[in-house]
């Protein structure tokens, strides 16, 4: 048969197509027959289904986010270091971090003989779980939250603070002095920075009167000046410094300072257990950035509210058979339309150059038009995009800091928290409370 002459991709297709078609037909038949029953079951157990869906969604969010962040960090820091960075696997090395994850998964999972085995095994789970569970309360868009808890902020600080327990467990159980120092540093740092972190947010809680993250985002909906970064600038600065320390990022990455204590709490870990620490670190960065953008940068609110509300109703169905013809013709016509003036500007411009320029201009304009339409007509997607844009801008700031700054010493770090951040956050709290009292 022609089997031996097929490429590997062709073989995969030849196997998968029948399976998919038969499986799809079977699934459709099952849904038609048992659809009402499944629907009734889901309806009867809605809380359980909601919980399962939320868990799956948070898991689906954290894993790609961690991969994306690892890739971002590798690439951005490489550019800052005037290196090329990952460039072999995938376009511009984009799949590098996934392969990295696979490599970690396949490595030997070694347990040193003198460690405290149960604690040693549990520590990465605790660390990962703590950062994983906080994703649930992040308000990606008004109706796009895994669990829209009324006390979301409190939940966030409570669960987020659990992570340090895992770090201490790892440091203590590893039977290694570097790990011990790393764990103790993590504990000291987390406890010190937890206080200004929490106190700086109390001003916002006073102003909005709620602990629910979606409601806090909603409170910033008016205009750009309603964002809390403008109403609570001091709190924003304190909060930013504190989350840098909470996420163990440079310049506050004393817990895993490789020049001093090798790898801190993770010194004795290998394989996927180390991978969990690594993942948790990046998920943490994403979470704290998301929290900052929700609390201070208006979350999913657009920076500028349009003074008009465009109603773009394009009824594509009414075009009938003209739709495919138009869709085929529009790019050609648009390209030619924009290429003509470029071609006429100078005789030095060759035909293909003009066509390329025209195609690029048409592409940019049509993308902008579709984007504008989506912004006007599909608010959840636009909101999600704004939220992610702000979050990733903050993540970029963290990566930028890592590329630029040296590390603070542990005593400077602690002194800064207790001598400057704590009084400043108390001052901010006092001023906010006084202002609220005087104006009401």
């Amino acid at each position: 048969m022609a089997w031996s002459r097929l490429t590997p991709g062709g073989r995969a297709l030849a196997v998968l197509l029948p399976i998919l078609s038969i499986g799809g037909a079977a699934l459709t038949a099952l849904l038609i027959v048992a659809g009402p029953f499944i629907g009734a079951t889901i309806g009867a157990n809605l809380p359980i289904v909601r919980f399962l869906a939320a868990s799956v969604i948070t898991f689906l969010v954290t894993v790609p986010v961690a991969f994306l962040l690892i890739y971002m960090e590798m690439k951005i820091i490489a550019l800052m270091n005037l290196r090329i960075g990952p460039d072999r696997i995938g376009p511009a090395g984009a799949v590098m971090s996934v392969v990295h994850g696979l490599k970690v998964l396949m490595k030997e999972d070694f347990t040193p003989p003198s460690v405290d085995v149960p604690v040693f095994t549990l520590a990465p789970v605790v660390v990962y779980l703590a950062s994983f569970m906080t994703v649930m309360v992040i308000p990606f868009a008004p109706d796009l939250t895994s669990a829209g808890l009324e006390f979301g902020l409190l939940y966030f600080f409570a669960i987020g603070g659990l992570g340090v327990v895992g770090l201490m467990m790892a440091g203590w159980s590893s039977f290694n002095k570097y790990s011990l120092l790393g764990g103790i540093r993590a504990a000291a740092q987390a406890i010190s920075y937890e206080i200004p972190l929490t106190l700086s947010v109390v001003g916002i809680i006073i102003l909005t009167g709620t602990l629910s993250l979606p409601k806090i985002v909603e409170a910033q909906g008016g205009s750009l000046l309603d964002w809390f970064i403008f109403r609570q600038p001091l709190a924003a600065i304190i909060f930013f410094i504190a989350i840098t320390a909470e996420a163990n990022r440079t310049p506050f990455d004393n817990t895993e300072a490789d020049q001093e204590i090798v790898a801190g709490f993770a010194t004795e870990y290998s394989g996927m257990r180390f991978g969990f620490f690594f993942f948790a670190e990046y998920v943490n960065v994403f979470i704290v950035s998301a929290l900052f953008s929700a609390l201070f940068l208006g979350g999913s609110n657009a920076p500028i509210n349009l003074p008009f509300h465009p109603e773009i109703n394009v009824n594509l169905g009414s075009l009938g058979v003209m739709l495919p013809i138009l869709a085929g013709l529009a790019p050609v016509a648009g390209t030619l339309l924009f290429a003509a003036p470029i071609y006429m500007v100078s005789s030095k411009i060759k035909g293909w150059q003009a066509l390329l320029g025209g195609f690029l201009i048409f592409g940019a304009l049509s993308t902008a038009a579709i984007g504008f339409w989506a912004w006007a007509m599909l608010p959840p997607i636009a909101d999600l995009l704004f939220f992610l844009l702000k979050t990733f801008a903050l993540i970029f700031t963290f990566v930028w800091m890592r590329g630029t700054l040296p590390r603070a010493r542990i005593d400077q770090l602690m002194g800064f928290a207790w001598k400057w951040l704590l009084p400043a956050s108390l001052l901010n709290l006092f001023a906010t409370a006084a202002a609220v009292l005087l104006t009401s």
Partner: protein
Amino acid sequence: MTTQQTRPSLDDPRIAIPSTSEWYEPAPTAQTERQAEFLNLRDGEMFINMGPQHPSTHGVLRIVVKVNGEQVVDLDPVLGYLHRGVEKLCENADYHQAICYTDPLEYVASLFCEAAPVAAFEKLMDVEVPRRAQYIRVLTMELNRIASHTLFQGWMALDLGGITPILWSFIERDEIVDMLAALTGQKLLYNYYRIGGVNGDLNHEFMSRLGNWMSRAAAQIDSNTGLINENELFVRRTRGLGTLDQATALRMGVTGPNLRATGVPFDLRRDHPYLVYPELEFNVPTRDEGDSLARYMVRIDEIRESIRIIDQVLHEMPDGPVMAKLPRLIRPRPGRAFGAVEGPRGAYGVYAISDGTDQPFRMRIHDPSFVHLQLVGPLTRGNLIADTMAVMASLDPVMGGVDK
């Protein structure tokens, strides 16, 4: 020693046996000095063993740090992991081969390790080095000094936790190293100086690369230093750390930038001139503070002075031969000679004794890194673990030279 009851602790020398029944046996008598130290630890103290494989020891150095929490109580550098017996090897090689053995001692600036023995042997032989060869030596040595100092700058920032500066400094170092490779054929261990001159005249590729680099060197150095010098975190971590006073520095035999950072303007290039340095115009940068930041700043100023020297050398270099007329087999008269150069880390000296044969009777190498490594203990005591790295980096020892 006291018969104290040993408790289960991370510092137990019999750590490999986790059986609990052993912990309550009477304390063993210390067999070695190190074991005695372990058994005499006070409450709350512990030893941390840094190296020989550790991310921030420059080369293969082991430091045993006694810490109380984060604070360093005592610190003991353990040397010898890189010992090759270079001095003894040199005694069994003829004078040309001895230069190859001293070459890899200070491997980040190996031209200075050639210049010192070559200077000593030339004194033994009483040869006059041609003027052009002298200028070429000054030119290449200053280039190597810049390469070493830029690398130091990156190392210093890396040991304080910044990752970008080291890669930025490697741009400079790579350019200089490639330049010297075009001249000497080697990137790290050049083996370029010969007794009585240098091995080969300047070539076109070297000169074009050098001209290219000189046109942007100052700006590049400024951009590299701008990343670190004005950084609040860097300055706060190094200012006032590991302060070395003049008296101690002179008593310990400190030389080079580490001495000049305490305010003593001692530079062999000016005070005991060799080659054509007396004819060149340059400053000896000093600082008065004597702390890690001062040691760093002195080196940065020296880079600028070196660029100035290279500029003058390129303008004044005469034509002529690059090698003196000497017999193929070198057999100096019996006697002794001391040759010293001002290396990037301090005075680098070689004391050679000749007994009239074609091999040196005795060769003693004075390496500044060895002297400076003694200071790590006294300067770090009482500071934090993180400061050990900052002090080590600012003293800039190279283990190849320490262990010889």
